[in-house]
């Protein structure tokens, strides 16, 4: 069995995806397709709709019109297979890193020890301290572990490299490579042109909420 067939879905397709905030359009009839084993970089200026697209793909917002198909899955069934890493770590500052991971593992129904995650993301002794005491790089490692603990089929990365030092960016790039190899669909939003060039298999450019360019 190939890595791809182990995934619950290998494509994510949006059709006519439109999101209005009041009367302000954030996305207008966006049709995109994301594929497994590919890193799709979503580019565009501030306010072009990149983060809105990520929000919709993560089901953190509802489209005003249009649909998102996660292979044959829709709605909450698909949500289980989506991982999100953003600039904010999405971790409780007053819980330790491991307490955060244990909580999210229990919510995702991930059984067993978290030692593998600890090893993979080099979660040292800092993971046993409240996350409010962690550095940006340490937080990002914990956030990566949170986003990946359920082995998502769709990994959404919204400005994940912001504020990371060179070593942090290298570590992030290695994880993205691993996820691509595992068969995940990876969508990467970044303003870091060098990082985008390095990671991109495909590019989608948004401008004023519309797809202005899609290139392999």
């Amino acid at each position, binding site marked *: 069995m190939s890595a791809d067939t182990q995934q619950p879905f290998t494509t994510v397709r949006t059709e006519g995806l439109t999101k209005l*905030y009041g009367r302000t359009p954030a996305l207008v009839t966006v049709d995109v397709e994301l594929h497994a084993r590919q890193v799709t970089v979503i580019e565009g200026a501030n306010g072009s709709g990149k983060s809105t697209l990520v*929000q919709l793909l*993560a*089901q*953190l*917002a*509802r489209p005003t019109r249009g649909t998102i198909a996660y292979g044959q899955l829709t709605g*909450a069934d698909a*949500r*289980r297979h*989506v991982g*999100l890493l*953003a600039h*904010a*770590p*999405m*971790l*409780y*500052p*007053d*819980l330790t890193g491991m*307490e955060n991971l244990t*909580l*999210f593992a*229990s*919510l*995702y*129904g991930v059984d067993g020890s978290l030692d593998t995650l600890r090893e993979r993301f080099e979660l040292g002794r800092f993971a046993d301290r*409240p*996350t409010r005491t962690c550095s940006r790089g340490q937080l990002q490692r914990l956030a990566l572990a*949170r986003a990946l603990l359920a082995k998502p089929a769709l990994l959404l990365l919204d400005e994940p490299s912001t504020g990371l030092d060179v070593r942090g960016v290298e570590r992030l790039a290695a994880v993205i490579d691993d996820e691509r190899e595992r068969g995940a669909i990876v969508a990467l939003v970044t303003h870091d042109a060098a990082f985008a060039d390095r990671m991109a298999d495909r590019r989608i450019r948004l401008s004023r909420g519309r797809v202005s360019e899609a290139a392999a």
Partner: protein
Amino acid sequence: MKGFLAASWRIAAKDLRIELRTKEVVVTTGLFALLVVVLSSLAFYLSKGLAERLAPGVLWIAIAFSGVMAVGRSWERERDNQVLRALLLAPIPRGALFVGKLLANLLFVFAIEAIVLPLTALFFHVDLLPILPMLLALMALGTLGFVAAGTLFGALAARSSNARDLVLSLVVFPLIAPALLGAVVATRDLFAGASVAELFGWIRALAAFDLIFLAAGVVLFDPLLAD
């Protein structure tokens, strides 16, 4: 159903763990409630009879204000570092998130009430013992309704980018007004010697309010949180 309850408990247990570690919600809002009771006793204590009549109002004002503050602070924790997004992404029924937050918020407010009630009795010379079981029942019913409403709309405020306290106050206080009115009047009648039978109408009204907001919370939580 088992999964729903398990997820709710995990959310509540997480809040309790954080609170036991920081004591932030109960201590800060409990001190506020304490201040309301003490200042009210200094300002309004003119005679024992008058104090007894003022006690229900002071008790519920302290509980309502500190309770709404506690609920708001509890949701702020989900806003810090945008953890709420991670919770919403998790494959649990969003109604379970509501129930978990409600459970934790109820325990916070009950802890505040455990401080406020004996102090109100002390400062306003109310003999609690003969009416304690009925008073606790009324407080539980009154608290459940307004904490449920606060938890439901507190989530909405937590997702707002600005004016969160304004959103919470403007939405929650009008909504909880019927429950608070019922609770205050029922407590006043209880202090004045009303029997259980005489209070039954208020108990039924408070229970109905609780059921409405519990059901509304479980059903509306998901659509309310969707942008």
